[in-house]
């Protein structure tokens, strides 16, 4: 499909029209934060380079998602619930597009989860590339999630006065056709796109002392590192890191009943492997009781288990966990300390 170019003014007009007729969500500045929210007008959108407080995956795996409705008054009736609300998500950053591609691989390709699939089929993803790193916590270049080969409907790159538009799906093609003012990209546009991409290299330095595909081996050989004990003593097990992580998807399944006690709902709600009850069985045994084990489990999921199982990065380098950690546990430091301090030389700090 031929790439397009649209002026910024035309894009804003288009988003205004879109937001008037459909549910459009985009990053909106709120004090020191940027949050993904419903927008009424394009002017509300923030183009700040800062990951949103919660990742856009919250639209595909909401904090609380109804799975079934049941009634028990007249026999038993069970009805599975699938969300079919249309959403256009604008301003999804490359790290989050990578995270969504991982969730697709898990919930659609592997698990055929109809609840996720339904939401995914009804969301349009308009990505916006990053040309500057957001802050000291971002390490997408190290995780190789800065470039986005696929997983979007449209991908925009800022060319100054205009956006370069890459089309990633037939849905994206339809959308861009409704954006009347866009023109076909020509050679000069592609040169400008390449220059914009090239200009990132100096700014997006590698922050990890290993490549992302070396993390599984590093984590496997760091299993006995004393660093896990150090982190276990620091960690408060609050679960903030897993709540804001775009690749965390663990959940609990619970029921709630109607007031008449004849009906109710079964739903899934975000859960966190950092909480002690997470691995507790009915008879009361917790299989990941020490905090050090729980911290180690999280880093292994992010750097190792997911990559080994699904062939995709289980951490996309967005830095949200570090920004939200109350005691300053930071994946860049953790991975680099594991790399820099082989197990036998690790000392308690």
């Amino acid at each position, binding site marked *: 499909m031929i790439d397009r170019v649209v002026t910024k003014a035309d894009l804003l007009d288009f988003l205004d029209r879109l937001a008037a007729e459909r549910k459009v969500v985009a990053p909106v500045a709120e004090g020191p934060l940027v949050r993904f929210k419903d927008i009424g007008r394009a002017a509300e959108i923030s183009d700040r380079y800062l990951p949103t407080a919660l990742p856009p995956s919250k639209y595909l795996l909401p904090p609380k998602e109804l*799975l*079934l409705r*049941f009634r028990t008054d007249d026999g*038993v009736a069970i009805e*599975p619930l699938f969300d079919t609300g249309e959403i256009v998500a604008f301003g999804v950053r490359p790290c989050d597009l990578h995270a969504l591609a991982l969730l697709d691989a898990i919930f659609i390709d592997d*698990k055929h989860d109809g609840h996720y699939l339904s939401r995914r089929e009804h969301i349009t993803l308009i990505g916006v590339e990053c040309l500057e790193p957001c802050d000291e916590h971002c390490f997408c270049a190290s995780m190789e999630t800065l470039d986005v080969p696929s997983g979007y409907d449209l991908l925009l790159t800022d060319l100054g006065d205009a956006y370069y538009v890459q089309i990633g799906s037939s849905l994206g093609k339809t959308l861009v056709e409704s954006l009347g003012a866009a023109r076909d990209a020509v050679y000069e546009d592609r040169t400008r796109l390449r220059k914009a991409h090239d200009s990132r290299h100096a700014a997006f330095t590698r922050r990890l002392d290993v490549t992302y595909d070396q993390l599984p081996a590093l984590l496997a050989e760091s299993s006995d590192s004393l660093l896990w004990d150090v982190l276990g003593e620091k960690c408060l097990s609050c679960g903030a890191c897993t709540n804001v992580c775009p690749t965390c998807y663990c959940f*609990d399944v619970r029921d709630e009943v109607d007031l008449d006690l004849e009906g109710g709902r079964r739903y899934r709600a975000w859960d966190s492997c950092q909480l002690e009850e997470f691995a*507790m069985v*009915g008879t009361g045994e917790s299989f990941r009781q020490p905090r050090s084990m729980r911290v180690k*489990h999280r880093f292994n999921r992010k750097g190792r288990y997911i990559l080994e199982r699904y062939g995709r990065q289980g951490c996309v380098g967005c830095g949200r966990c570090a920004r939200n950690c109350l005691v300053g546990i930071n994946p860049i430091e953790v991975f680099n300390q594991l790399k820099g301090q082989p197990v036998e030389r690790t000392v308690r700090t």
Partner: protein
Amino acid sequence: MSTPATVHRRLKPSPFLPDLAEIVRKDRLTAAETLYQLRLVDGTELGHVPGQFVEVGVFGVGEAPFSISSSPSRGEVFELCIRRVGDVTGALERLGLGARVTVRGPFGRGFPLDAMRGRNVLVIAGGLGIVPLRSLIINLLDERADFGDFTILYGCKNPTDMLFKDEITRWAARSDVDIRITADIADPSWKGNVGPVTTLFRRLTIDPRNTVPVMVGPPVMFRHVVKQVLACGIPEDRIVLSLERRMKCGVGECGHCQINGVYVCQDGPVFTYAELKRLEEAMLR
């Protein structure tokens, strides 16, 4: 040793959409455990393999995972032996005959029954470990001619904790199965062996070339029994274990049952020792 692949009853748009089952029988086994007999309302058989589990739910309370305790060789009903410990198990106990519960599954990888055919089988049960093993034991007894020597070691904490007493008595009367039972702590009525299940190995002759040990019990039992059977010369990939974890969704999504990179609900709950040896989280506690 190869183990049977995961069996799904049927593919559904929602992995959480359950079937309905009716409680057709309830037998109180001990102060805390009840044996439930369930039948799927749609008339189909559960279609499980010994060692698999189901998610049973009570509307408004929730779901919990339970090992299937009956053998697939025994018709359209299936049995779950459930200890009353929490919300779901408490609600189950309050339900009467004819009440309906939700069932999802069977899930997971069961015991490698086919790979065990023609071999001697040594079943080692600790405490509630007898619950999933009963499925295997009955299946083996129903197809007894397919297997070599059949030995069952069963250890419980107190003689009063012993499950399936009447059945075990009947099994013990058979000449084609060797059952040995022990209690950690004896009471005045107990005439049998006293001590952990490992003490039953003392007078046991095991042919390491042709024996498949299958064990289910608490982690502490695994550590000692694995050591015993390894010392007999049984290779690591022929030692079969089933693990307990919090299998909340049953379909490998929710993360609760994960051991290192492995999802017990899908990759297990039955593993060989060779598989588990590499997983440091498997044998902790």
